[in-house]
Structure formats: structure tokens, C-alpha cells
């Protein structure tokens, strides 16, 4: 059964079973992943999958179910389960099926040029990166990870109120993590990049950056455990912003899971902080013309010069506060319930380069990489205590790497303690969030 036939039969049968408004969300994904290790293909995986989710109003309540199989069994499975799911719901503010905006943005997130590469060419590119990695420095003993991934996602939304929307995007990305050894000491460093070409220049650049990163962690020193002036390099600052972006969701606020309750209109950050969500940014990884309910998306300035302007809303959270949706309805995939999430969420950059920020530090620590974010971040209290890699800075100069660190603080305090903001925002990264480097007045540092 094809999608159109399935939709027609599903919607017809839904009506006879007593559903009023109904919606079908469809996703199709093609993906290729390859990992290389010592010249050999370590993983080569190709996939083509599709799935859909049904949402329908039954007795005034919204029931959900999804399936990955387009057959008659699935039509009954979807409708029967969605009905049973609707009947047990008890939340007061119900979801609605959206009737559509009069106009939609028409940004393009699909790069035709990326289709020209064959799987063999992508693997060949990894081999080139690998060969340069070993040429770059004799201390490189191996790659912990060397991979490439191309993906293409098509999504569509149809409902009984007349919405019929479709969009697609594609992405090619590579990542390398290198193991370097000097004496008895083994260290690793990683670099990842969104790709638009497979040239040798690009391969060399990736190899060089990955190797430099790994080498920079050799000869680490232990530092005193105390509070330091801390420069969060853009990738580390991005990881922190990304971890805490859910606190700006109206859903989390309404469910008592964010400390931003009753804070709209108030100063929640230093006046140097502006936070923007731009779903239509051409370089963004989470770009979208319409949200998961079919609402047209737009740029939203959430925090402007320290003041909280708004939270992120979908229709349901907006109705609860009698405001308009901001177009941030989100579904992780067709398997998930509707929630609220940021798209391309970033901290507005300042005008100082990363190097200039370092020069301004008399004594401090640069945090370059964070790990174990899922365990070290308390989204609810804002506290974080995260394992990190970094460098020690003295008199405006990087003195060298430190032993494994833990950096600890609180997100809300941090927003009020940013001394300088870098100009090095990179929106095209793996996270849906991005931040330039941030110089923080003080954070607790523990060194192993």
C-alpha cells in the first residue's frame, strides 16, 4: 500500500470509528554510515526506513499511535490504540489539530550537490583523512573513531483540517577522534565537521584540526582545586547551552520542571546575553519551515539583553497562558508525543576572537570539551558538575593541558556571570544549539 492510499483509508476509517479531527505525520529517512579503522572499513551501514504517526481527537481528547508498516493490520492497530489512549487521558489542556497558517516560509534545507557522492567516494574520503592523520604527527597511534554519515530526511504532515505540508533536508558530516601517545601517556582529541565537499584540502584540514586537538592534551598538569576565571570554548559553551535549553520550554515550566516560572518580563541574565531561536537559518542543523503541528516557524528572541521575553510554546502550552504559539511544537520522531523544543538556538556572538579572549585572562582555565553531560547536568536545579578537558592559562598565554577536570557551577548563575562573549559562533554543528566562547568570571574546577 502506498502512503496516499494508506492516508485515504486511514482517515475514512477514523471517521467511521468516531474520530473527529485527525492528522498523519510521516517521515522517511535514508542514511549511510561508515567507520574506518587502520585502512579497513569497520562499519558500513545503509538504511531506508519510514514510519508514521496518527493523531486523532476522540471524545475531545487526542489519541496517538505509530507504525512502521503500511498494511491493513496497521490501520486497525493505529485507530484502536489511539482510541484507547485517548480515553485514558486526563490532562486538562488538550491538543488541537491545527487549521494552518495563510503563509509559510519556504527556506531550502536540501543541498542537491550532496547527492553526487557515492558510498565508495565517502569511504575513500575517510581513507584520505586517515592517511593525513598519520602524516601530521608521529605521536598519533590510532583513531578512536573515524566516521562519515550522510542522511536525507523527508517529512510530511496531513490533517483533516486541510494541512498538507512537506519538506526535506540532507546532511553530510564527518568526525574523527585521535589517540596520541607520548611516553606512557595516552590522550585523545576529537573534531567534527559538516561537509559540503570531499576535497583533499578539506580532508587535510580535518586531519590537522583533529591531530592538533589531541596533541594539545599531552603533557597535562595538575592544578589546584579552586574557583577560576573560566573560558568556555565555543564547543563547551554550546554543550552547556544545549543541555539547559529545555528550561526555556513552556511545557517544562508549566510542569514545574524549570525555574523560569513567572519570570517572563524579568531579567534572568546579564545585559550582555541575548538568546535567539532561528528555525530558518540556512546553516542550522534543526531548521524547519513548519513545526510538528504544522505551524509556520519564525525567529524568536527569547532573552534580549538579559530579559526573558517569552518561553517556547506549542499550541497547547500557549493556550494555557493565553498567548500565541511560537511555532516550537516538536516531535523527536513519529514515535514520540508532541512536545516543545528549540530549533537552532544560539547565544548572540560578541566581537572578540577566541585568541583575544585568552589574552585578557591573567590566570584561568579554558574548558574545551565536556563529557558525561547526561549524568552531570541537573536540568531542574540548574546545577552542573561535568568532566572536562582543558588548558591552564597564565598571563594571557595557554601554558598547556590540565589533567582531567570537573567544572561545576549553576546555569542560572552562569548567565549572570559572563564577562566577555566571543565572536566565534558556529551554528552548523551537531547540536541544535550553538554558543560562541564565553569568558566566565568564576567557576569551580577540580583537577584529578
Amino acid at each position, binding site marked *: 500500500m502506498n502512503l496516499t492510499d494508506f492516508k485515504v483509508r486511514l482517515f475514512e476509517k477514523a471517521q467511521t470509528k468516531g474520530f473527529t479531527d485527525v492528522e498523519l505525520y510521516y517521515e522517511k529517512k535514508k542514511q549511510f554510515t561508515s567507520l574506518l*579503522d587502520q585502512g*579497513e*572499513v569497520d*562499519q*558500513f*551501514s*545503509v*538504511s*531506508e*526506513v*519510514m*514510519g508514521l*504517526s496518527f493523531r486523532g481527537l476522540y471524545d475531545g481528547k487526542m489519541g*496517538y*499511535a*505509530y*507504525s*512502521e*508498516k503500511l498494511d491493513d493490520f*496497521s490501520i486497525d*492497530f493505529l485507530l484502536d490504540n*489511539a482510541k*484507547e*489512549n485517548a480515553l*485514558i*487521558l*486526563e*490532562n486538562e489542556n488538550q491538543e488541537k489539530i491545527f487549521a494552518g497558517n495563510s503563509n509559510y516560509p519556504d527556506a531550502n534545507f536540501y543541498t542537491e550537490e550532496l547527492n553526487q557522492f557515492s558510498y565508495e567516494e565517502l569511504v575513500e574520503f575517510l581513507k584520505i583523512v586517515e592517511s593525513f592523520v598519520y602524516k601530521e604527527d608521529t605521536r598519533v597511534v*590510532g583513531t*578512536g573513531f573515524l566516521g562519515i554519515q550522510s542522511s536525507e530526511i523527508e517529512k510530511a504532515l496531513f490533517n483533516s483540517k486541510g494541512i498538507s505540508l512537506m519538506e526535506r533536508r540532507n546532511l553530510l558530516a564527518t568526525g574523527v577522534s585521535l*589517540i596520541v601517545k607520548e611516553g606512557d601517556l*595516552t*590522550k*585523545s582529541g576529537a573534531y567534527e565537521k559538516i561537509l559540503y565537499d570531499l576535497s583533499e584540502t578539506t580532508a587535510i584540514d580535518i586531519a590537522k584540526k583533529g591531530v592538533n586537538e589531541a596533541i594539545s592534551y599531552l603533557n597535562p598538569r595538575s592544578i589546584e*582545586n*579552586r574557583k577560576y576565571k573560566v573560558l568556555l570554548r565555543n564547543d563547551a559553551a554550546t554543550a552547556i547551552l544545549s543541555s539547559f535549553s529545555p528550561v526555556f520550554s513552556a511545557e517544562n515550566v508549566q*510542569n*514545574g*520542571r524549570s*525555574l523560569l516560572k513567572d519570570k517572563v518580563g524579568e531579567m534572568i541574565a546579564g545585559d550582555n546575553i541575548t538568546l535567539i531561536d532561528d528555525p530558518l537559518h540556512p546553516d542550522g542543523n534543526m531548521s524547519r519551515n513548519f513545526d510538528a503541528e504544522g505551524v509556520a516557524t519564525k525567529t524568536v528572541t527569547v532573552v534580549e539583553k538579559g530579559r526573558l521575553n517569552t518561553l517556547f510554546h506549542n499550541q497547547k502550552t500557549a493556550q494555557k497562558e493565553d498567548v500565541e504559539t511560537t511555532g516550537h511544537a516538536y516531535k523527536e520522531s513519529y*514515535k514520540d*508525543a508532541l512536545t516543545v523544543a528549540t530549533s537552532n538556538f544560539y547565544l548572540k556572538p560578541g566581537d572578540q576572537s577566541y585568541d583575544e579572549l585568552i589574552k585578557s585572562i591573567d590566570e584561568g582555565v579554558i574548558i574545551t570539551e565536556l*563529557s*558525561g553531560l*547526561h*549524568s*552531570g547536568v*541537573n536540568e*531542574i*536545579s540548574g*546545577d552542573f*558538575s*561535568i*568532566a572536562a578537558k582543558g588548558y591552564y592559562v597564565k598571563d594571557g598565554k595557554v601554558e598547556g593541558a590540565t589533567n*582531567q577536570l*570537573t567544572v*561545576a*557551577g549553576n546555569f542560572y548563575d552562569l548567565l549572570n556571570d559572563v564577562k566577555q562573549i566571543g565572536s566565534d559562533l558556529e551554528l552548523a554543528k551537531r547540536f541544535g544549539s550553538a554558543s560562541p566562547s564565553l569568558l566566565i568570571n568564576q567557576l569551580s574546577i*577540580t583537577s*584529578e
Partner: protein
Amino acid sequence: MLSQSLVQDVLNEALTTGGDFAEVFVEDRLTNNLSLQGGLVENSLSGRDFGVGIRLFKGFQSTYTYTTDFTKEGMLKAAKRVAQTVHGDQLLKITDFGQQQVKVLHPIQQMPQSVDKVRKVNVLKKVHESASQYSDLITQVSIRLKDEEQNVLIANSEGAFIEDQRVRNILTVQSIASEKSRMESGYINTGALAGLEHLESIDVNFYGSEASRIAATMLDADPCPSGTFPVVIDNKFGGVIFHEACGHSLEASAVAKNKSVFSNKLGEKVASDLVTYIDDGTLQNEWGSINIDDEGEAARRNVLIENGILKGYLVDKLNARIMNTDITGSSRRESYRFAPTSRMTNTFIAPGESTREDIISNTEYGIFAKYMGGGQVNPATGDYNFGAEEAYIIKNGKIDRPVRGATLIGNGAETLKKVDMVGNNLGHGAGMCGASSGAVPVNVGQPTLRVSELTVGGTKGDA
């Protein structure tokens, strides 16, 4: 799920270009996710996952493809895709399969799909009641129930054609305690490879009030001091430290490429004499248990470390080739979307002789980690970190004030050698473990034990 003749055609198509092993994995999974927020049903989701994964080996090379297209043409097309990655003359052709029946180690009584959703809601409401009534400080309680029925068919060019059904359910409770501008959360779960009889047999009062107790306790906690201390880790989910610190490094996916600190160390002393570490997929109805692994091999008990000596690894088919050793029934995957690899099932430190009281009273100053949060390890170096969900200072052999924001940081190989007391109270805790073959249900376990020194990162600064 699929006929033998169809599977045979797909395997033979994959083998046309010289592959020396081919495998088909078919999955049809029905899932329900139910969540209560503030005692009311907030979400109820149901779904059906269906897909086919095809894997092909030639020597040490492995190719994987998967699709939701279950038509004969769709599957043959996928088989062709993997065949294209291999070059050579056909080596194998399958003509028939052996008859294989799964030995059911974990009986299932009540299939979750057969139970009215209202009956599940009723249990969750009782949990909510005990959680919300624990204290006035509790401002939010979220309860989730996930149940699933995973039907799989695994067939390969060695003649295996075997079907299995995995039925699981897991209840999670998260309580939030608030006071003025502070919020803390408490989390607990219970899961089993079992039907809904698991949910209906649990102590609802314990699971509700325990999550709230943790949240309320942490609201009263002081910032954790940082520095190097003896750390006492409590039993059950405390075992996550060894799951991260040594379990992952004992998986063949790390060992085979000499990327693990335990590579080439069989028979060597790698841990304190007090440490015996076991992975056992046969523990009846436990969350991480299996009848067969995702390559169709029977579950078993694997002793990894015995009295400090390294005895074995967890090995899947591909890595068994590379390492020239035997498989251990440890190959797992999240779903048809992942090629399987060596993973843990229920992994635990075997019990010792001390009591929890002995261990604490023998510690003059240190940290007691009662509940651990999640964590991670860098397999290349063995460096790990993870957060303590509920922790206390130990002062003069007694548990003192609760502390928040404690992160334990260390190195797996070193930590194993620093275990200096092991309790007699082995317990297991349920979790989801993420790695290259996706998120799989695992138990981590241990008795209460002490690590003589560990780096603790906290917000307070030096103690």
C-alpha cells in the same frame, strides 16, 4: 514472521558476491508508553516497529543494512546492497535450516498487550499517591511505564532459523522537591524481562516514597566538597561504576582492536583480590536477561574477573573471528536498526563478606554514594565520570550530612585495584546502556563496597 524459503532467498542473494556469513534479523515490536504527570494521565503512546536487518561478513569485514520495506522485492534489494560491498566468487549457498527452538529461561505470564490500559493506570496512580504524600516539599511527580513485546526472527548462513519473544516492562518514578528558588529531583525505577505480573507485584509504596525521599533529602543537601576521598558505593545501581569502568572495556568490540586496557591481559591480575565480576544473562526474569542473544545464541553466565584475575571477555561472532576465540552469547542490539555487537546483560560484582555497617564504620572521612546517576567512559583511556544522585559525607565512621552535585571521576583499571572492602548484600538495578549497537536493557549490580580513593568533583571547592 517470515517463511523459511523467503529468508533463504534473501540470505542467498546477500551471499552471491563471496560473503562468508550472512544473517537476517526480523523484528516486529509492539510498545506502549504511559506517563502520569501530577497524578493524571498525560501521555499514552502505542506503536508498532517493524523492520528487517541484513548483515554480511567477509573475513573481518562486516556490512549492515536495514529497511522497513518487508516485501520480497524490498528485502532482495537490501540484500543486493550488502552484497555490493563484497567482491569475489560465491562461497556459500543455503539449502535448508536446522530446526531450532528457543529454550525459554524466563517465563512470561501476562502479555502487556492483552491488559486493559486502565489496569496499568491504576497501579501508576497508587505509586503517585505514595510519592506525592511523602512530604509537602514534593511539588511534582512524573511516573512512566513502558511495556513492550519484541518478536524476533534470527536466521543465518550457519543454518540457524530461530524465533524469540522478549517481553519487558519498566516503571520509572521521578519526584521533584522545591523550596524557595531551589529544586532537586529523585529518581528510581524497576524493570523486568517479564509480563505485567512484574508491575502488579511491586511494592508501590516503596517506589513512590523512595523517589520523593531522595528529592527531599537532596533539597536539604550541602554542596559537595571536591578532592580525593575514600568512596563507599551502595549496592544495586551503585554497580554502574563497574559497568562503566570495566564492563565496557571487557566487551570484545573494545578488546579486539587492542583498544581496551584489558586487551591481551587474560590470566593477569587486573583488580583487587576482592573483585569477582560476572555477566549473567540467565538470571530469571531480570531486566537485562535474555533467552538468546541477537545472533540467536543461548544466554549464559560468563565470569569475567575472578578474585582479581582476568578470566574472559564478552564476545560476538565478528569479534570472535578477529580474536580467534569463542562467542559468549553476548551479542545484542537495540532493534533491527543496529548491527549487533558484544554487550553486557546483567553484570555484577559478586558478594564479599563485609556488612554495609562494617564498611561505613571503618571509614573515617569519605563519601557515601547511596544512589548513582548515569555516567560514561572513554574506552581508549578508561577515564570515566558519573554523578551521584544521592550522596552523604561519612565522618568518623558515621553517615553525616547529605551532599549534592557529587561527580565521581577516575580510571577504570585503577579503580578496580582500589576496591578494599566488599559487602555481602548483592543487589541489581535496571538501566538502559547506550553504545554502538544502540540502547539495550541491562542490569548493573554489586554489594555495598569501598574504593580506597577516588576523585570527587563538587561545587564547594576543597574540603
